[in-house]
């Protein structure tokens, strides 16, 4: 089976800091890959490289048969990549629905001429954009759809995280990258999120890569886990394999402590 996303020997440095060091990484269609590692391990940097926000210094990146090294984020979105952000970054002065409608941008065409003349085609396209956007909002049952006309900044924190996912869904991606989606959620919310991530794969057919510090979440959703430390991939495999890996435990707890303890689960 060919990989949906394949990174080979990808590196990125910032001045003297080797943020990501010759990482090989892949994700298959319909797979959920968890990325773990202590703070500063290079997880978000890896996301930024994959989604085109950073260009890698070295390495090859293939997504869905395209060489994507050096492509801009908007081009990658068009190819079918979508992401959420660690610190929630919504278009705050736009409504919930408009946020999701922006997600449809790369799937639609009309430009200035269409906007000015407002032909039948433009009107139909606008309707379709709104329709698609509402579908994405509806994924979160009654959390977002009833609030479609309020400002994004007025949403409660967890709903803001949900809207980030809905906005990413509206881009109709093949691969979705979630950067700490469970951050700041209570246990009940996390339970729900775990089910929703599963549904994203099963119902929408996305491949998912997620960064998460919350080990129960990683444990429940990941088909495969990759552990990073200091920019290097130190382990890969099932959650059980990775969490019992000596190097991973050391990275999280320090060498001395690691000798007596296991990774928290």
């Amino acid at each position, binding site marked *: 089976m060919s990989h949906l996303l394949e990174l080979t020997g990808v590196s990125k440095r910032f001045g003297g800091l080797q943020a990501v060091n010759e990482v090989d990484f892949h994700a298959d269609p319909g797979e959920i890959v968890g990325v773990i590692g202590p703070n500063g391990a290079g997880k978000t940097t890896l996301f930024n490289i994959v989604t085109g926000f950073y260009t890698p210094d070295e390495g090859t990146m293939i997504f869905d048969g395209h060489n994507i090294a050096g492509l801009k984020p908007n081009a990658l979105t068009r190819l079918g990549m979508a992401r959420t952000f660690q610190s929630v*970054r919504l278009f705050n002065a736009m409504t919930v629905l408009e946020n999701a409608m922006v997600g449809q941008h790369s799937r639609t065409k009309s430009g200035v001429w269409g906007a000015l003349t407002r032909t039948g085609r433009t009107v139909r396209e606008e309707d379709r954009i709104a329709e698609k956007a509402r579908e994405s909002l509806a994924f979160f049952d009654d959390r977002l759809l009833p609030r479609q006309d309020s400002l994004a900044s007025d949403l409660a924190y967890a709903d803001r995280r949900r809207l980030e996912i809905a906005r990413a869904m509206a881009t109709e991606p093949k691969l979705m990258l979630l950067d700490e989606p469970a951050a700041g959620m*209570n246990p009940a919310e996390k339970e729900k999120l775990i089910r929703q991530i599963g549904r994203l794969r099963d119902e929408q057919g996305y491949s998912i890569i997620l960064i998460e510090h919350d080990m129960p979440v990683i444990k429940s959703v990941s088909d495969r886990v990759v552990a990073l430390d200091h920019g290097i991939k130190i382990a890969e495999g099932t959650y059980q394999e990775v969490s019992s890996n000596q190097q991973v435990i050391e990275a999280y707890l320090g060498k001395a402590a690691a000798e007596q303890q296991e990774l928290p689960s």
Partner: protein
Amino acid sequence: MTADTITKARGRRGLSETPGFNTGAVAGIVVVYLGMVGMIEAFSDRPIITDYINFGPLLILLIFYFFAYAAIGRPMNEGAVFQTGITVGVVGGLLTGVFLILVEIGESAGYQVRDVFISISPTMRDVLSFGFGPYVGTVWLTAIGALMGLLAVLTRRLQPELRAAVFSALSVLMIGALGATLFRVMLDGLSIPTRWLYRSDGLTLIGTVVILALAIGIRLYVRRQGGARMVALSLPGATDRNLPRVLIGLIAIALMALPWIVNTFVSDVLGTVGLYILLGLGLNIVVGFAGLLDLGYVAFYAVGAYVTAILTSHASYLVTDNPLRPSPDTFTNFWIAIPITVFIAVAIGLIIGAPVLRLRGDYLAIVTLGFGEIIRILVTSDWLKPYLGGPQGVTDAERVPFFGLNTRDPRILYYLILAFALFAVFISMRLKDSRVGRAWAAMREDEDIAEGMGVSVIKYKLLAFAMGAAIGCLGGAFFAAKLSVANPGSFTLLVSINVLAVVVLGGIGSIPGVVVGSLVLVGLPELLREFGEFRLHIYGAIIIAIMVLRPEGLIPDKRRAMELHAIEVHEGAGPGPLSAASAEGVQ
């Protein structure tokens, strides 16, 4: 009694903590300031109601009144309201009196205060002390201040509806009196006799009564009928469904009739307002929609004016190998020149836009500021003098041909500018509510995330610059058509700042805001010309008042207004959204 309350308050909290003391001090300073710049003296003979009230003394009363009114705006208990309101007036009056006494003492000790402050004239001091001299005048000022404070408290306690009616009636009266010159011309234009209404710049007593009665009557009628909606519905053929159309129709009729009611001077001013509406709408796309702070917007104004002027000019001193003009005798029809102008402006918009694509916020502002200056320096340069006329500019632009009408007449030109401004409004509205407008809004909110959501930031930035240039250059084209000249003196940094001020004052991103902003910022100073040298004082005060009272702009964009409102809600209601958020699980 009031002095007693002040002493008591001082005993407890110190003078500056007495409620109303600081506001009163400011009121006093404002009165003294207006006296020292000569405004009160200059207006001492300007009648509001001829033979009864003059604007100068009224100004003093109004200042005490409004500061007292503002000071009691916060919720406070019964006694405190009276105390605060009266304190403001008393402190203001006392301070003014103290100023007069100090001047008096200074003069008798031989200091020539007027050597420096030429406006501290005997007349001014006379007006300020209501003709009683500094010592008795101080008592009067204090008493009048206290009275105004009391009046402010009493109006605060009126029923809100009644209060609003009183305020609007008095405002109408003031506007009617101060705009006497303008309204006289307008009424003459409608051939309505004015002798019963105005006498020597002020209202007559009968006029005052009629205006007050009309203002209150109309207001009460409109209230009872449920507002402007009912007035419009009372027209023949109007129903709830076509109400917006009826309102638009009414506005259209008013806009069409305007030049024939007002004189040519006002038509000319309206034309200038129209130019700024075009410029403002263009800049609103760049700054308001796309969030790119452009401080060199004058560049497109200049490009529009110069290209149109060159194309349509008869000027013989321009060289013949000018690519835009094959020979000195030929000139292009204005209507052919317009598309060429737009094309060139868009090209220059793209040229200016391209190098600044990677810049954001402050940096973008500084670089665009530089581009604006470059354009200004280029048009004055010797190098381009054979083409652009150097400091002299391009003169003798041909008038706009329009069905044989005399388009030099400001009233005719007004219609052309109005048509283009309406077209620009249409373009702005359509763009705003479209896929393009959403992409711009997303980019304005967060450039990185917009890019991440599939918006090509580079493309949409260039598009914003191009659309902004296309609309803004129309303002320049009509400038050239209006004055038949494009000269460098008209395209200074100040224009960029003024246009930006129009956009900000009206409400960033708001299309009606641009229209109202242009009327206030460009129309008002012209209409205030009657106030001569004090025009900019009044204008400045109005602008400050607008920005303090309505920081979101006069007619804010729906989204921005919601945002500001949301902030108030968050601040106001403690257990509201916050607790909802914590229930959602903020750790």
